[in-house]
């Protein structure tokens, strides 16, 4: 015990000792999550990669989980923070169920709860380093929203995190429409995930697609997308610019 203690109060976040107490950067991260509303509910896709910096270290990470009866949560960013969030939500749903009174928290409520958690952590300079996608159906109402690590939240017909915002959203803006069938929705998501696979360094070719409807949630077995590398531009990349690699 150091009695010549620092002049700062115990709960101060300033100073080198305090740095070990708050998140400064993520370690094991997941990449994009993409989701859209379709006729019967929500479809969400995420690959199963957990990167350790630039190493594709873990290849069976489930980044989408069901929450209660009505919601589905997908996360990108720090995996350990995602697990922490799942623990918070587990407790939340437990207490909700303990009321045993016919009321239950729907996706809108869970989304707002998460917004409060993320924003409050951000205000303490100790964020949960995640971008979350929360989708679900309750009483016939479809809901799809997102929250970032700084507490920015909104709902939309299609959302994505990370690289998905730059590569997938433009595709969705062109091709999404109301009342997509399940097959069309999956096809659209796969199109987005394929682009991400080609262009996102941290993406791996092992993904899951989750579906949530009024009846419940299902998550597919992991599978991989067919890719095509024989584009002529790739055959001789140095053609246009000698010396390039």
């Amino acid at each position, binding site marked *: 015990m150091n009695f010549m203690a620092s002049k700062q109060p115990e709960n101060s976040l300033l100073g080198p000792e305090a740095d070990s107490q708050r998140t400064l950067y993520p370690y094991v991260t997941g990449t994009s999550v993409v989701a859209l509303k379709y006729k019967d509910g929500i479809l969400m896709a995420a690959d199963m990669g957990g990167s350790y910096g630039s190493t594709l270290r873990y290849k069976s990470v489930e980044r989408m989980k069901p929450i209660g009866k009505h919601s589905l949560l997908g996360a990108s960013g720090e995996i350990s923070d995602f697990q922490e969030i799942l623990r918070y939500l587990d407790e939340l749903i437990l207490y909700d169920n303990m009321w045993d009174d016919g009321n239950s928290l729907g996706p*809108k409520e869970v989304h707002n709860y998460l917004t*409060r958690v993320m924003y409050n952590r951000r205000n303490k300079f100790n964020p949960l380093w995640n971008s979350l996608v929360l989708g679900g159906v309750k009483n016939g109402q479809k809901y799809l929203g997102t929250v970032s690590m700084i507490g920015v939240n909104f709902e939309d017909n299609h959302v994505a995190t990370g690289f998905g915002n730059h590569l997938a959203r433009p595709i969705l803006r062109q091709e999404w429409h109301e009342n997509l069938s399940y097959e069309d929705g999956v096809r659209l998501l796969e199109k987005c995930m394929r682009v991400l696979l080609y262009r996102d360094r941290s993406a791996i070719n092992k993904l899951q697609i989750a579906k949530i409807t009024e009846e419940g949630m299902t998550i597919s077995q992991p599978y991989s997308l067919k890719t095509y590398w024989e584009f002529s531009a790739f055959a001789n990349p140095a053609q246009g610019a000698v010396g390039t690699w």
Partner: protein
Amino acid sequence: MFRNQYDTDVTTWSPAGRLFQVEYAMEAVKQGSAAIGLRSKTHIVLGCVNKANSELSSHQKKIFKVDDHIGVAIAGLTADGRVLSRYMRNECINYSFTYESPLPVGRLVVQLADKAQVCTQRSWKRPYGVGLLVAGLDESGAHLYYNCPSGNYFEYQAFAIGSRSQAAKTYLERRFKNFSDSSRDNLVKDALMAIRETLQGETLKSSICTVAVVGVGEPFHILDQETVQQMIDAFEIVGEQEGPAAEPDAAAAAAAGQEAAAADQGGSTEEGVAPMDI
């Protein structure tokens, strides 16, 4: 009830297994002026008798809006009622802020009941001396609850508390089977009739009563004096055809007529039986 050696504090049981302080608190509810509540599948109406102490003063507030979907009418120590209303408003607004969704009435009522129970098990506290009729709209429909000082709560189709509430209860008991499918306006009329029963012959005027409504598509609000008076006029006069334009089914309700309330009066206390549930 008579004084006895077991009634000094709330943490003393009587040999018969009664907590007299809690029962005395419920007595305080019976002495307060009447409050009634009734519900259909889609609406709940709260009403209360509001008599000012003197002509110079205004009357006490007995109906409180707790949230857009919940309101409460009180009988008993109105100061205790005010404090509990503030607690309820707080709970509602905190839930709304966190979940952006209205707090289900059933849960608010349980929290309120648990709060009341604490006061029946601490030697340094006293029970709240107020009964609350909580009206609220949920995902699961329209609800009316009664919260007791004892920490119990019950759900009702219709209920009345306070002095001379037995007259209103008798009226409601006769009619409650129809309430489920009643229209909003008929529900309000039934509420006014029930309030009139507690007045014992005194003329029903909008200046001595307050009525509030909450329903599907209709946030909780207290009806203004004019509207209430119009509705009173519409049914009070037998045989008169059309009331003001605001009440389309005024004619039907006017034909229902006035029935003399021959019910027995007073705050009834059942001797020998612990009245833990009213």
